């Protein structure tokens, strides 16, 4: 959903978050670009869809937002904390829709071992957002 992707990307441009990243472009939808400089943030639609409970159109969506760092788990967690500050109990400006719920529901951590022997730590969360068509 392009409108939601745009809204999340814009929301994650908060200075407190981007100051921990190489730049404001270090936020990606679905997957980081090849050879992206660490650390970076990736967000993606995890699950959800239309509620179909009333004639009004509403979507109930889960969005997975996570930070990747080669420095440490602590570093990834610090970036994740800034994502949390921007998103949890906040709101999104979704073009053509009204956002009435945005809260973090699950916390996730993971470490990946690259073929080079380096480790990449991930820290993130799954956020539920509910939007209603204007």
């Amino acid at each position: 959903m392009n409108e939601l992707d745009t809204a999340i990307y814009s929301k994650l441009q908060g200075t407190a978050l981007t100051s921990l990243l190489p730049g404001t472009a270090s936020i990606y939808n679905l997957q980081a670009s090849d050879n992206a400089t660490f650390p970076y943030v990736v967000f993606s639609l995890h699950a959800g869809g239309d509620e179909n409970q009333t004639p009004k159109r509403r979507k109930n969506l889960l969005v997975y937002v996570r930070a990747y760092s080669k420095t440490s788990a602590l570093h990834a967690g610090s970036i994740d904390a800034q994502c949390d500050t921007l998103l949890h109990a906040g709101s999104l400006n979704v073009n053509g829709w009204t956002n009435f719920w945005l809260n973090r529901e699950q916390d996730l951590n993971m470490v990946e071992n690259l073929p080079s022997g380096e480790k990449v730590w991930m820290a993130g969360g799954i956020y539920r957002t509910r939007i209603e068509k204007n």
Partner: protein
Amino acid sequence: MADFAGSALVGAWVQAAATTTITGDHKSFTFTPSINMINKTAGADQGATYIPGVKDGTWTFNANMQSGTASGGTTTYSTLDEGNEGTLYVYPEGITAGKTKYVYPSISQGAAISMPYDNVTEVTVNGQLNGLRTSGTSTGTAGA
């Protein structure tokens, strides 16, 4: 005959202050008919027997509450304040002329509001039948 879903429902509440279309953000509508029973069990009867008395009924309407004061907001629900008398028109298949219409003269028992922290605010209105329920066909206009 084709089946149809509750999404086709149109409802209008005709009350002295205003006629309001209460559907648009509805989740469910239920009408439960009943009848007063006059017990005529007597003598050597081995089971209870009854004479059907007058008809009665109640209804319940549930919807998400909309912000503001327009239709679906405070105007709609103020006309449904507890004790308000009016007539509820219900069109299960929609408002298209010729479709089934039910007419319920009623007394509203008020708009109960539920505001859970993690969900949308909902309104539930219970109504008491206040006269004989009738049925007919839609004229194409809600509340007529």
